[in-house]
């Protein structure tokens, strides 16, 4: 009745059903790591063609529109431009095409910047294979599972995972509260954008302080509520959510590992 729209509130999860979506998130994380390492090792244009082909095929399998994957590259345009220019003009090389003072455009330079560009674009756009197909909760569960051997060394893996899930749960709550606070202070004349620097700073404080204070109070209340429901830490705790590793996860990971190894080998 009075409900607002819920759903995944942040992160780039793209809610469709696909083979990739259904894979165990741990397999996806490991596979993505392997893929990234492989991409780093590629130093030939021809191999990049294979990488891109493989990437597109995977995106297609994951039913992710290409436009979405490419959109994530948009944010990096400046960085990409910068690195390619640096690489183009400052790489030492033999076959000089153009020269002006310190700037020297060589074939090697072009080659190097081209490879760098392809590498960065590949890394960013294909990382979507993980982030578009896995919810933040799944990622948190997967990390908790993968890192659990560290518990033996005293690393508070469970606690980190619990922090993650609670933080995710409270994001919309905090966003809404921040909005209310900003509005409350604005109605008292608080403005971030105009007025003297001192006034503007004061306006920022007027939002940050209540936000922090209330967040801490929430944490306090929540801790008591968790205690009241028998929370005593990670010992003896069984999670409702289960990650089930299946044959297709082994298969997918194996295929990716082989592919990554091939990419590494192609370097030499």
């Amino acid at each position: 009745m009075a409900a607002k729209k819920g759903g995944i509130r942040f992160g780039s999860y793209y809610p469709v059903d696909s083979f990739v979506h259904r894979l165990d998130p741990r397999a996806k994380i490991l596979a993505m790591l392997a893929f990234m390492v492989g991409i780093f090792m590629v130093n030939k244009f021809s191999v990049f063609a294979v990488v891109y082909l493989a990437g597109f095929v995977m995106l297609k399998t994951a039913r992710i529109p290409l436009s979405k994957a490419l959109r994530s590259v948009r944010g990096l345009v400046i960085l990409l431009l910068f690195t390619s220019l640096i690489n183009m003009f400052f790489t030492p090389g033999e076959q000089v095409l153009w020269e002006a003072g310190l700037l020297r455009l060589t074939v090697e330079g072009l080659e190097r910047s081209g490879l760098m560009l392809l590498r960065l674009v590949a890394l960013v756009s294909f990382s979507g294979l993980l982030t578009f197909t896995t919810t933040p909760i799944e990622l948190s569960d997967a990390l908790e599972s993968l890192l659990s051997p560290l518990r033996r060394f005293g690393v508070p893996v469970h606690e980190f995972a619990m922090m993650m899930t609670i933080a995710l749960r409270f994001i919309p709550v905090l966003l809404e509260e921040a909005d209310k606070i900003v509005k409350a202070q604005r109605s008292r004349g608080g403005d971030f954008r105009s007025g003297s620097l001192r006034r503007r700073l004061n306006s920022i404080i007027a939002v940050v302080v209540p936000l922090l204070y209330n967040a801490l109070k929430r944490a306090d209340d929540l801790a008591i509520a968790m205690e009241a429901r028998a929370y005593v830490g990670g010992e003896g705790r069984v999670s409702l959510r289960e990650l089930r590793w299946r044959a297709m996860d082994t298969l997918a990971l194996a295929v990716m590992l082989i592919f990554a190894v091939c990419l590494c080998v192609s370097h030499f």
Partner: protein
Amino acid sequence: MTLRLQNVCCRYGGEGPLEVTAVENISLEISRGELVGLVGHTGSGKSTLAQLICGLIAADSGDIWLEDLCLTPLKKRQRPKAIDLAQRVGMVFQYPEHQLFAETVAQELAYGPENLGWTPEEISEATQRLLKRLGLPPELLTVSPYQLSGGEKRKVALASVLIMQPPLLVLDEPFVGLDAVARQEFLQLLLAWQKENNSTIICISHDIDLLASFCQRLLVLNRGRLKLDAPIRQAFNEVELLEECGVRLPTARQATLAFQAAGWQLPTEALTLAEAAEAIKAAQTKAGEQIGG
């Protein structure tokens, strides 16, 4: 202070948790000094309307005029600044915790006026006056707002808005969580201040009995539309409409209607329990005479 809305629509305000309930085609005019109640079921757009009036969110279409200030200019650049708004309208939110931030109560009260460019002398004078009127001891000025009791916090939050003497005051559920005594006290402070300044008050509340006790006019929203805009006594005559909109009748009205349904003859215009009691007693005498013979 005239508040004028003409065909105001606001459909989308944000994503997910920041989503704004839509309002459609709202037109109304409120004059200086009026006491207006704004009611409607949760999700009917009350908060949206309140925020539109205070200039905190922008309308998609239509005109909003706060006296001489236009809140809906054609060019985004010409949108009113926070200071222009703060001079004309003050908003009191549900929980003081969304507002209190300063190191001392004095600084808290000074925040608004400082933004408006008042001199320290003006601020100090206004602070003293307001403290007295709200019954807060002057020692409170050096205390941190976070150390105050719940009731004191609310008073300080209210004071920090009232100090700017806004001609229009909008309150969004100011009575939630207050016990009976605190509620009455808060209301009396509010009304006393209003009388002194002849300010306009728009109050959102789901406590219909409370609204019935002081509002002169009632606005009823349902699913983003303004379904009823009438002087308060008449407003409660629209029994079916109010039921449709999920708005309860004040107890006094329910009572007189109940007695009428039971066969007694009495006017059903009561707003407060006292009025209802009088009407019922009068009807009782009549009914008694009828039985007697």
